[in-house]
């Protein structure tokens, strides 16, 4: 390993960050200027408590860096979103520590619930910090919906002797004792009512932790009621779903709905197709990321900024120590498209390390 890389891994002073960051966003003018704005999106920081006041340094670094970089955005985004899994095992210590780092963000911040925040106490402490587990709001003519999509069957919840055990079982991505994510009947009813108030030409953006599409059940890249939710969203001419959980770039188009994932600030995940024993369904639109470098702990982690225009969201993935990737809305083809890598047969994404 070269010395400069070691220094790079160790150092993450804000001076270093400022020096290497592309902070200016390219804002494009579109038909309805009132719908044009930007927001920042940070997700999956998995703050993990060791003991006393010790936390896993690696994950702390990822989140701190995202907050520091997002604060440098120019022009300033209208708001920020945190996409869930602030904590690893949902404890007060982890949520408090994560919340403290996140509070460094200089923007209004909307929170999404992740399974790692939830299963210790069904999100009670998270709600003390952040309020409602699902809600909606309007911003410059766009309707935003935040779902808690990581609920599951009561039967599974009641299966465990202790809260810690329940949390531990749900925290393992590949745990065969896990249970599929869902929004549940009550929330689905709420969603239906919430969306009914809007005309079909209102742009709608949904933030969820799980994908709201069925990609691979084994790792919960999955939401049980995906089809029902998609049906509700498809009524809108411009519907967008942005989700966390998967720790990798994914994007898709189903009817009027544009899907895109966001990165984790903590660690990357392999694509489900790399697991030889199971079948998965990565959207064919997705040009996958290249392999991550295990010698660079921030490789293939990052955060994103979103450019909202014409009812659609372009995404810029700020990939630490990697060339950034940009997904733009292609109005002719009617789906998101990487601005450089557009087809599965050209899948090698920009990659400095391997």
């Amino acid at each position, binding site marked *: *390993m070269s010395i400069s890389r070691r220094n790079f891994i160790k150092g993450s002073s804000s001076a270093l960050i400022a020096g290497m960051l592309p902070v200016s966003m390219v804002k494009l003018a579109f038909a309805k200027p009132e719908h044009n704005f930007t927001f920042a999106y940070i997700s999956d920081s*998995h703050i*993990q*408590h*060791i003991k006393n006041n010790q936390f*896993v*340094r*690696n994950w702390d670094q990822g989140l701190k860096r995202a907050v520091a970089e997002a604060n440098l955005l120019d022009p300033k985004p209208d708001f920020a979103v945190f996409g869930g899994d602030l904590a690893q095992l949902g404890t007060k210590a982890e949520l408090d520590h994560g919340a403290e780092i996140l509070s460094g963000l200089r923007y209004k911040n909307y929170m999404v619930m992740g399974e790692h925040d939830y299963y210790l106490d069904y999100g009670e402490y998270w709600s003390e910090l952040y309020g409602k587990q699902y809600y909606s709001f309007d911003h410059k003519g766009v309707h935003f919906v935040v779902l808690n999509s990581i609920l599951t069957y009561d039967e599974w919840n009641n299966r465990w002797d202790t809260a810690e055990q329940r949390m531990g079982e749900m925290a*393992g*991505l*590949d*745990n065969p004792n896990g249970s599929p994510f869902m929004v549940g009947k009550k929330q689905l009813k709420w969603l239906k009512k919430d969306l009914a108030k809007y005309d079909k030409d209102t742009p709608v953006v949904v933030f969820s932790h799980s994908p709201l599409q069925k990609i691979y059940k*084994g*790792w919960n890249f999955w939401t049980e009621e995906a089809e029902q939710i998609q049906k509700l969203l498809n009524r809108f001419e411009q519907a967008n779903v942005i989700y966390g959980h998967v720790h990798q770039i994914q994007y898709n188009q189903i009817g009027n709905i544009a899907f895109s994932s966001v990165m984790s600030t903590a*660690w*990357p*995940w*392999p694509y*489900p197709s*790399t*697991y*030889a*024993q*199971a079948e998965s369904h990565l959207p064919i639109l997705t040009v996958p990321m290249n*392999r*991550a*470098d*295990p*010698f660079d*702990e921030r490789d293939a982690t990052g955060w994103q900024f979103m450019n909202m225009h014409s009812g659609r969201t372009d995404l810029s993935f700020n990939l630490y120590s990697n060339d950034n990737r940009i997904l733009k809305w292609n109005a002719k083809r009617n789906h998101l498209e990487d601005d450089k890598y557009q087809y599965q047969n050209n899948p090698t994404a920009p990659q400095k390390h*391997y």
Partner: protein
Amino acid sequence: MKWLTLILLIFLVPGQRIVADEFSEKDVERWLAQFEIVAKEGRQLWVSPKLGTNGVACAQCHPNGANTHPETYPKFQKQLGKVTHIWEMINWCIKNPLEGKSLAADDPKMIALQAYIYKERKGVALSPGKH
């Protein structure tokens, strides 16, 4: 002297012959079961917060052992500047993301981790040297 006695003894034991390795279905079953026991230990280590010192487990980043590419070893590991076997990369991940202590190549834990990794990768063609 001693050798001579030994050789003589072998020839003198009645019915003793030199034969090819013979085994029954029962043997095969037992051997496979032995492998499964060790692979299971490997899986337990895979999800264990105790393998390292910071509570992080292999499974957090490698669900089902994915992205460990056992079929590509031995290979040139660019970052180490030499051809390595998988146990060296396992140690890399123990020392770094898990902030733990490396294991000896023949440590039973190291064998168990590999048994698990290879089991999850069963059926994938060998491809030594592949990046």
